[in-house]
């Protein structure tokens, strides 16, 4: 028992030493602490990812004061990263050089590599998941922030990625109001597929209701959205049995072919990838595109910055339609998570853990959910007026969330998705045929993922 228990005792001694001050101090205690929080992929609507930590710090200090102790937390917030790549680069390099922020708000898919590298610590070591408010968080979200059966992070928000239809354009190509109302159900039942999307988009272009290239107007950069189309054609990201990533060549080829067909039919631009986001948002929110896809948070952008007053009068939304018989209509939820980084100062980690716990209070999380049009993380949010009375939150939750899946927490998923997207880009821009692009994807994936890949 020597080594194991000495290992345990060692870490215990360090932790106990660090924490004795907090837990057992008889005298009043004063503590000054700076907690840094970095959030990736966050715009003006997402300020509560950071502000929630500030609110939590206020509450925690008050709790200490009530107990007779003094806690002064300075929260340093940062979210002005150029994009996800720059954010992840910054966090990784800062952590490697020992100056990681205490809390990061990032994709749940970062948990696998960062936990293996020892950059983050399991949140379950610091908080009681069976106590309020964490026992109110949806179990499936907590599963997404776990890796190897260990809960590493707390879900910060949830979302889904719907298909959007501009109602006016749909009417002009021959849909009645009733048919538009019934569209989400038809998508859900698999009666309206991606082939129908191409047909309708082509009608809209041919009838000159929208410009060429604006019939189907997809996301302009890499993102979980594209994995949805892979699933629409029957692709599976991870094999549940073995935990390995799956390259389904047939599904991948058909998924690429769909975008090539869209370009050939003139409904999607060949050079669409790389379009500026600002331009893209302005165009879809003003009806310049017939059919497109996005995320639940787009609601905030369309109705806010882009000035679309009547969202429900102008836009219909549904799941991502199935692509063929093997596939199924789906949507991906890509929750961001609060993660705790490994720090020399054990006490700072403990306090950071308290902060993200408090920030998960339904009332505080609701501020973020509604302000940024994300979905809630706790069951109790449906009893909070701000959330319950928000039409978008309730309808999107009901229509999309039951069918939402997530991307796998796998060490190599980042590489997998990168190669998948590059392959799509080469096919889409006509550099290679879909079959050749998939052949290259296969070679690259086999080389880079090795044993962690199943090819079908």
């Amino acid at each position, binding site marked *: 028992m020597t080594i194991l228990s000495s290992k345990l005792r060692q870490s215990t001694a360090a932790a106990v030493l660090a924490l004795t001050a907090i837990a057992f101090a008889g005298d009043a205690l004063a503590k000054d602490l700076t907690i840094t929080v970095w959030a990736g992929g966050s715009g003006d609507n997402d300020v509560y990812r950071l502000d929630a930590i500030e609110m939590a710090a206020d509450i925690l200090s008050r709790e200490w004061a009530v107990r007779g102790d003094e806690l002064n937390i300075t929260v340093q917030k940062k979210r002005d990263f150029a994009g996800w790549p*720059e954010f992840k680069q910054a966090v990784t390099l800062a952590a*490697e050089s020992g100056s990681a922020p205490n809390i990061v708000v990032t994709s749940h898919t970062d948990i696998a590599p960062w936990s293996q590298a020892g950059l983050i610590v399991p949140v379950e070591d610091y908080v009681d998941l069976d106590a309020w408010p964490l026992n109110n968080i949806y179990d499936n979200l907590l599963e997404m922030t776990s890796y190897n059966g260990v809960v590493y992070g707390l879900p910060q928000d949830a979302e889904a990625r719907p298909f959007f239809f501009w109602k006016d354009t749909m009417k002009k190509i021959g849909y009645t109001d009733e048919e538009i109302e019934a569209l989400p159900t038809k998508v859900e039942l698999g009666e309206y597929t991606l082939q129908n999307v191409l047909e309708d988009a082509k009608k809209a272009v041919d009838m000159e209701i929208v410009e060429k290239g604006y019939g189907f107007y997809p996301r302009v950069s890499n993102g979980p959205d594209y994995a949805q189309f892979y699933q629409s054609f029957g692709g599976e990201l991870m094999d549940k049995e073995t935990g390995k990533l799956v390259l389904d060549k047939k599904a991948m080829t058909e998924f690429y072919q769909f975008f090539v067909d869209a370009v050939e039919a003139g409904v999607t631009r060949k050079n669409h990838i790389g379009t500026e986001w600002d331009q893209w948002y302005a165009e879809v929110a003003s009806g310049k595109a017939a059919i497109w896809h996005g995320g639940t948070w787009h609601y905030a952008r369309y109705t806010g910055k882009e000035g679309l007053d009547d969202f429900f009068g102008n836009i219909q939304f549904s799941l991502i339609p199935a692509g063929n018989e093997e596939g199924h209509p789906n949507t991906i939820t890509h929750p961001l998570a609060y993660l705790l980084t490994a720090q020399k100062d054990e006490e700072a980690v403990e306090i950071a853990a308290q902060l993200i716990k408090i920030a998960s209070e339904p009332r505080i999380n609701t501020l973020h959910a509604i302000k940024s049009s994300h979905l809630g993380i706790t069951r109790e949010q449906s009893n909070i007026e701000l959330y319950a009375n928000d039409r978008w939150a309730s309808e999107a939750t009901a229509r999309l969330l039951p069918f939402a899946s997530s991307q796998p927490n796998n060490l*190599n998923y980042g590489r997998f998705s990168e190669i998948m997207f590059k392959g799509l880009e080469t096919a889409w821009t006509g550099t290679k045929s879909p079959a050749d692009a998939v052949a290259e994807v296969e070679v690259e994936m086999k080389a880079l993922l090795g044993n962690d890949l199943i090819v079908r």
Partner: protein
Amino acid sequence: MRRAHLLGLGFMAPALLITGLFFLAPVILTAVFSFTSMSSGTGISGGAYSVSEQTIRELPERGFPQETADLLAKDVYRIDEAGLSDLSANFGEPFSKQVRKALSGKVFDGRKALVTEMKKLRERPRSVRQLKISADLFKRSILNIRFDSKAALLASVSDIGISLDASQQTILAETSYTGWSWTTDNYKLISSMPSAFRAAGNTFIYVTLTLSVSIGLGLLLALATFYLPKGQAAAFRAIWILPRILPPVIYVMMWKWLTWDTGFLSNFLLNFGITPRNWMLHSDINAWVCIVLINGFVGASLGMILFSSAMRAIPASMLHASEVDGANRRQQIWHIILPQLRWPILFTTAYSTLSLIASFDYIYLSTDGGPGRSTEVWALYAFHTALNNYGGALQYGLGAALALMLVIIGIGASLFYLRIFNFNELVAKPRIEQ
């Protein structure tokens, strides 16, 4: 050693230091990194030995007995004497007594079950973290513990009563290791990946085309301004230097405004009935034209300055004499000016080749290698691999191997150029002192 030599060395010292710090050290580090499997998943500072669910799944595939793997997968918490005495030492006798009374001899599957029981005890630590640490004192399994060394891992495995033979120990240690290891796989990977070949091809296209544009245009500008009156010539040169002195971000931003589908070019061509398009990213040919021009204009200014000053050094009497002989401008350029520009042209070509091979800043800012990797040059490929991609899967080792190949090509090219320049001749001792 003579004092003069020491003095010379003294003068050289700063340069040597800078070469050492900013060239040799990074190159050596890159070389070292390139023989490792470092990535964002392994970390840089070294790994730990940790048996996780993933390890358990992988073990049987590597020939480890399934039953032993299943044993390792158990997460056992046992309330025994050793644990109780640890508990009393760290958390006080009263709590230890309560645990002994309520739970002695019990075995729990996972910490959660034990903590749930502990929460019912009145003397328990009130902080969640403390409570979990106290529960960990009873952990009698190794699942998800990060051990600093292989020896510690294996000793703990035998502590919990699992005996492994030598080969099983090796498999377990290798599978559970989370850090990086020494390897030559990066070079094998590079030689097997289509994207690497494409990057190499792209680099060749990029260097050749950009070089032709920048040298050709530089020469043209130098010749054109040579025959202009001084004032006008200076003004023209100043304008052509703008691309070089503008901050790259702003320079590229202006190109984007020019080429966007809502930009100047599209709006202008709309008058002639041409549908707006993104002239930079419409196809790989568009992207190449933009990249070659963006870089070519920057390069042209350097050529222009060097060639202009070299032309000034041509004795005016030669030009006057040629005019007396009835030579026209074309003959002047062909027979007098160009032959005397041989060395500046060669120098600029050599210098620009070397800087182009390693540069990717303007490409990164404009197309970022798109569309579909068609303009991703080797240096940008290395940057994307090692430091910058959407998924955050940073592969430091592979990226370093890619970068090192650039260094080797760069040094090779430098040696080649030194040879054709006949460097010794260029720096030959002045005859006057002989």
